[in-house]
């Protein structure tokens, strides 16, 4: 008897709960109803720092007042996680950053609104960037900006090691020999991020990459990639290169800014970070040293995603339009050091920032991120292997990446 009462109570609780679910059980296949009139837009960004947050907030405020809407910009601490929970919660922000690595994941589950044809003059975006945000033949979102990697050199530590401008390495061999000199002057030569987003550049320089150009075949287990990882392993073993954590820094740019390393391989975002946190560091920017197969770097890009479940899609696309004008992109470039995604702004940028030539030139030989769904955990696993590269077996690591990539692409 008592047992039955308890059961009844729980059943009642469950019933109550499900009755309260309302919206949760709705079928979401139908188009989301759109609101009319002035709307309140939620924008979630994965900010690189205070400078970016402030710049986007100002731009959003400008858009809001000129369009009669309101716009709230929220910087996410962990964009992937927050977006994931928001999608599941049926209450995603209207506009949000989408990293090129994540595009296929979001697009394949229908979370993104493919609004590419509604944005004006889409052909003005660099072609490689459009490719990065195209899934199943549809341009899903407008590229926000892009970055490439370059070699950043601390001029004071450089001359302290007895080196001159002419010594800036342009090949792997030169990189090794200057590192030797810097190390003997008592400085760590190179602060190197411990992920494929930095070390991958060496793979490109050796002529390799994780997937084939069309993103359909796994090519991790190749002699080119092995050569690259063995070279990096050599740098690490000789302490020519050190990971940021070994230098008590969150990322390589911080180690560089603190003067703990004479060189680093970072993207153009390092300019803003150095200006804000380490204004006294003097540095120059150079193209990455070329490998056996010539020059190579990585490019990174983010787009303005619009949620398929947004109730304010028109306003959202209108907002993105305002954020991606050449003029607005130059404002962002000034504020936090990114490079405009529109070619029409490119000339103006080069003119204004001659020091960034190495970054812009990188666009010519850069490798974009892997564009395939379900690859994130594979790439994260690759990063894990790279964290232990100094004592690890590069051949086995690449074999593992090959196997995992094949099974991810096969699905």
């Amino acid at each position, binding site marked *: 008897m008592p047992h039955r009462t*308890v059961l009844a109570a729980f059943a009642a*609780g*469950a019933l*109550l709960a499900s009755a309260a*679910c309302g919206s*949760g059980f*709705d079928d979401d296949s139908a188009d989301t109803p759109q609101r009319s009139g002035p709307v309140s837009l939620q924008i979630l960004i994965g900010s690189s720092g205070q400078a970016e947050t402030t710049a986007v907030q100002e731009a959003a405020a400008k858009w809001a007042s000129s369009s009669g809407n309101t716009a709230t910009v929220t910087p996410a601490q962990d964009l992937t996680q927050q977006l994931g929970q928001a999608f599941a919660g049926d209450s995603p922000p209207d506009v949000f950053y989408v990293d090129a690595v994540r595009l296929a994941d979001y697009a394949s589950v229908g979370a993104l609104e493919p609004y590419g044809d509604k944005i004006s003059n889409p052909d003005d975006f660099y072609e490689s960037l459009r490719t990065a945000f195209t899934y199943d033949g549809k341009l899903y979102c407008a590229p926000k900006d892009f970055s490439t990697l370059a070699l950043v050199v601390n001029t004071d530590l450089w001359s302290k090691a007895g080196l001159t401008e002419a010594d800036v390495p342009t090949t792997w061999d030169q990189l090794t020999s200057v590192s030797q000199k810097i190390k003997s002057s008592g400085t760590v030569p190179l602060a190197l991020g411990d992920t494929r987003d930095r070390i991958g550049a060496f793979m490109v320089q050796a002529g390799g990459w994780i997937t084939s150009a069309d993103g359909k075949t796994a090519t991790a287990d190749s002699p080119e990639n092995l050569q690259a990882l063995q070279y990096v392993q050599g740098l690490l073993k000789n302490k020519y290169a050190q990971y940021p954590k070994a230098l*008590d820094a969150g990322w390589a740019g911080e180690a560089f800014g603190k003067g703990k390393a004479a060189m680093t391989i970072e993207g153009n975002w390092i300019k803003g970070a150095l200006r804000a946190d380490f204004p006294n560091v003097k540095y120059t920017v150079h193209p990455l040293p070329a490998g056996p197969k010539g020059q190579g770097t990585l490019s990174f890009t983010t787009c303005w995603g619009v949620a398929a479940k947004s109730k304010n899609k028109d306003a959202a696309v209108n907002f993105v339009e305002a954020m991606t004008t050449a003029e607005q992109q130059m404002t962002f470039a000034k504020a936090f050091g990114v490079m405009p995604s529109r070619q029409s702004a490119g000339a103006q940028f080069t003119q204004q920032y001659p020091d960034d030539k190495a970054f812009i030139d990188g666009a010519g030989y850069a490798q974009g991120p892997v564009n395939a769904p379900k690859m994130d*955990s594979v790439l994260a696993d690759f990063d894990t292997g790279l964290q232990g590269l100094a004592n690890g077996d590069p051949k086995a690591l690449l074999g593992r990446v090959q196997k995992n990539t094949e*099974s991810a692409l096969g699905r």
Partner: protein
Amino acid sequence: MRTRSESLAGWLFVAPVVLILGVFLLLPILMALWVSLTGWNGQGSPFRSGVPFVGADNYTSLFTEDGLPRQDFMTSIRNNVYYVLLVVPAQTALALGLALVVNQRMLKRKGFFRTAFYFPSVTSSVAISVVFLFVFANSGAVNALLGAVGIDGPVWFDDSRGLIHVLLGTVGVDNPPGALANHSVLGLTWWDWVSGPSVAMCAIIVLVVWTTSGTFMLMFLAALQAIPQQVEEASLIDGANRWQRLRFVTIPMIRPTMFLVLTLGLISTWQVFDQIYVMSQGNPAKTTLTPAFLSYRTAFKDFEYGRGAAISFVLFLIIVVMTLVQRWMLRERRS
């Protein structure tokens, strides 16, 4: 009359507790059980039609399918096993040792020491993790101490070398013997299985032992104070030395507390999450990945909610089994 109103009052009194636990504990567990049988990708509700039902696939991917999910899961199990093997004995021994010293009759100001040892237990795990991140930083306190005695401390949170691998390295075994490297069980090679906890994990182990010992010391202290004085005096007269007294008199007397401390230790060490989240997020090289954190990451970062829930249930099962085995073993030894 009385009983009917009493019955009504009884139900009213427990209603809030029953309702909340039902809706926010029992119901969610059932929901998660369902989700663990689906391929829900985190879009919209998992309870509408169209969410693919995959049966036990999420579970088999953890055990029988060769691939990244199994490799990650087994790595997390390995890490947690080493963590349990070090934390549980260490915290139990330290707690018992401190309790024995504090319990010495001739010592004064016991209250102060008891407070000092217990204090870390009541503070926020997040706040304490922040402190230990600094203590174990490359230029932090621990390495400064090691430096003072001439040891070049490791880069704690960037050091993925396993302790046993390091030890083998000191006797010249740097590369895995072929027999260990070429044969794998459940997705990890034997060489990977016997790695030992990584240096990074050791820092977390130190933190956890440091925070939990205080609570367990209080439990031991309460048990020690309950031992009748005559028992101790009788053993003194028998001429037993200190070790014999501990082994044959004290420990048998506090066996229930010992069981409790070990059980609570086993249960809580399999749940380690906060410290991992704050200090390492499973890095470096996945050597601080634990099932609890992996479950969270799989669901909320990789959007594999089904597999994340499956990991949760496997972990739940592990904890239940641990408790039962422990209970059974202590019963065996008692009889």
